[in-house]
């Protein structure tokens, strides 16, 4: 345990995950340090924590010895502007990425690190035009639960050499190992942008999608009855398209996003759900009587059900509409009697993947689908 003593410190009061206290905390400053730490911690159960914005999401770990805090794994390794790519350490806060007239288009919940965003696969309004983590991540470096360092992909956008481990780690909730570095495709910051905001029914979403306006985002908030469309591009192009959208949905142009734009609808201590349905079924969700908010243009919405009965009704509604629903976060009394992930197709293969990467089931045990 000598090596571990040098690499870790005793946990403090705040060092718990979903109410399960950790014994130790470590903050490696490089991939090599992280590999040495994980190799020395081969007997320990581990949860990885970035900025902590989502660390209490999901079921609590079955056991927890060590929290690996990624925040010292920070900074931009490379920003090749001419190639529209960047390589970033996982603990870097997304808000700290300063990329000039280029951007990494990941606009999930505020305050998150790069690694946390990848591991939890969060997304925001801009997913409609730019996709999600899986569309932007072009290379990844990870430390496996046995301490070996591995990478896949690279620094070029177009690349089909070998398996795409980046996709496997995206949304894996820290169950397969530690992400230390990510390479991303970037996009230019648009010269102009404008929102069209209207009080309008969800049925207008289909009209905006089928118009020739290339929206960057179409967001809906059923509690206020508002729909908001973001247009980006050249000043002339944006003006042109904004007037088309204005005619389609009514409302008015605004430089400002609505206050609810990209903000999860739940209270920090409440239940938060992610709902996903085919695009044409968005009105069915919006008109269900449950307040929903989110990316109406992609069919990914969020809800804040008040109790388990509402969770089950929302999930059933999604399933009836060829979709699915996941409880992202819930207070302990709810969480402990709920299947947060719901039914998951392909679970047998997922268990086999977990067995290969983490045969000791030490990384985030019990936090993922099917108790993985």
């Amino acid at each position: 345990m000598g090596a571990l003593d040098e690499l870790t410190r005793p946990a403090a009061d705040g060092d718990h995950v979903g109410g399960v206290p950790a014994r130790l905390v470590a903050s490696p400053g490089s991939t090599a340090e992280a590999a040495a730490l994980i190799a020395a911690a081969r007997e320990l159960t581990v949860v990885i924590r970035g900025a902590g914005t989502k660390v209490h999401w999901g079921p609590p770990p079955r056991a927890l010895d060590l929290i690996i805090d990624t925040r010292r794994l920070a900074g931009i390794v490379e920003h090749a502007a001419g190639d529209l790519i960047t390589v970033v350490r996982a603990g870097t806060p997304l808000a700290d990425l300063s990329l000039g007239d280029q951007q990494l288009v990941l606009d999930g919940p505020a305050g998150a690190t790069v690694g946390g965003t990848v591991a939890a696969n969060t997304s925001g309004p801009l997913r409609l035009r730019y996709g999600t983590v899986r569309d932007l991540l072009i290379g990844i470096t990870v430390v496996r639960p046995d301490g070996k360092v591995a990478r896949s992909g690279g620094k070029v956008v177009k690349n089909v050499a070998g398996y795409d481990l980046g996709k496997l780690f995206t949304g894996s909730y820290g169950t397969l190992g530690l992400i230390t570095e990510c390479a991303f495709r970037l996009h230019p910051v648009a010269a102009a942008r404008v929102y069209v905001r209207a009080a309008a029914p969800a049925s207008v979403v289909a009209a905006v999608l089928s118009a020739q306006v290339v929206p960057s985002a179409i967001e809906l908030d059923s509690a206020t009855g508002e729909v908001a469309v973001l247009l980006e591009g050249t000043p002339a192009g944006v003006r042109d398209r904004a007037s088309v959208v204005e005619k389609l949905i009514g409302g008015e142009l605004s430089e400002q996003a609505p206050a609810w734009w990209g903000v999860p609808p739940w209270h920090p201590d409440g239940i938060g759900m992610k709902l996903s349905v085919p695009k044409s079924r968005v009105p069915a969700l919006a008109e269900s009587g449950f307040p929903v908010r989110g990316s109406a243009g992609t069919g990914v919405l969020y809800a804040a059900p008040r109790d388990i009965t509402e969770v089950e009704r929302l999930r059933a509604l999604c399933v009836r509409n060829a979709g699915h629903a996941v409880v992202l976060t819930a207070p302990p009394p709810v969480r402990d009697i709920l299947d947060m992930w719901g039914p998951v197709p392909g679970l047998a293969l997922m268990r086999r993947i977990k067995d290969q990467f983490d045969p000791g089931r030490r990384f985030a045990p019990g936090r993922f689908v099917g108790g993985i």
Partner: protein
Amino acid sequence: MTDLDALARRLRESLGSGQVITDRQELRTYECDGLAHYRVVPAIVALPHTAEQVATVVRACADAKVPFVARGSGTGLSGGALPHADGVLIVTAQMRRILDVVPEDERAVVEPGVINLQVTRAASPHGYYYAPDPSSQQICSIGGNVAENSGGAHCLKYGFTTNHVTGLQFVAPDGELVRVGGRAEDPPGYDLLGAFVGSEGTLGIATEVTVRLTRLPESVRTLLAAFHGVDAAGAATSAIIAAGVVPAAVEMMDALAIEAAEAAVACGYPPGAGAVLIVELDGPAAEVEAQFEEVTALCEESGAFEIRIAADDAERALFWKGRKSAFAAVGRISPDYIVQDGVIPRTALPSVLRKIDEVAAENGVRVANVFHAGDGNLHPLVLFDDGVPGEAERAETTSGAIIDLCIEYGGSITGEHGVGADKAKYMPRMFGDDDLDTMQLLRCAFDPDGLANPGKIFPTPRLCGERPGRHRAAEDEDRFPGVEVF
């Protein structure tokens, strides 16, 4: 009766005799894919019509510990569908139904044998199309596209197959039918879909694919710019990207590639051009107009001596004709050639091209360059005459040296053709032992017996843990038993 005879009989009983081929002459039809200099005659060819039949064949292979290889249209350029001499080749070309086109969800559901372009044809009456457009899109299948994560000229803006598949049904190597994703996004759990797309048939066989449909753009503008040399054309590309424009495509051809295209299809590119760029912008009309002016000016500033703007679809097609026929066209100026597929950071283009010239000169061969300049995907065509002793070897050396250049500059050994049989040997140059080992953890989860397309991608198979009483069919033999190299 051998094990393979018994397997063939079992397959005939379950599929029907017309769907199982064991006649040596008929089997030869399937001995190679688009990479014709590797040839292996498979032991058995199965032609399933349904997902259940694919599952039946794979389960029979799993029971008999016989390797299997999936094949769509057989247009792949890395030998990904190269058969196994003691295995079953499972051809999905009979599964060609378009099951559903759902414009309101921006999705289509198709069987794996459906031809890429047919998806676009089915969707276009609704105002949509299927964005990934490999040059072989008139004949390549969606199942093959999924296996290879196929790209195309327009993936600079629109991404690759993996960005356009939202649901899959596939047969895992144990014969189980698995369904992941669908018309909705972000299915919970590990991204099996992301793992599967681009796995080159080593994780199973896709039997149904749900793809994204993309709205047809309101406006498409295409220009052809002629430069005195590749440096100027490269500078124009850099200027366009630096201006924050994301064209639908930026394609470059050098003088030798232009010469070949002229000889083959008389595309009428500007005489005297040392390089041409094809730049295509698409999107809302006002947006395209503004950016098109900017792109035209940037090409002029970078030294374009002639710029042609396509007046209509016919002229646009003519611009593309030279580019899309470039591979085959070099046959007009050289008896033999190797098509290479490598990637470099786009900004390294000028120095890499100079080094390719040096390597070619050292080896006494010519290299024609065709590339997706926007994303740094090079397709050097190494020209040689197999009739001249030693020239084939020198061409092979040149081709390998180009791949080394791609790695040296931080790029990739393949941008869209795949690793397959052809480039497995290069994988250790791009990835370390632990990288390859970690990738193969995924393979072990899907295919512990190593029966799905063995020998492809990975130069050395990984042992998937202790499996008492079981034997690995593929790894104890040579990687491609019975292979003939032409």
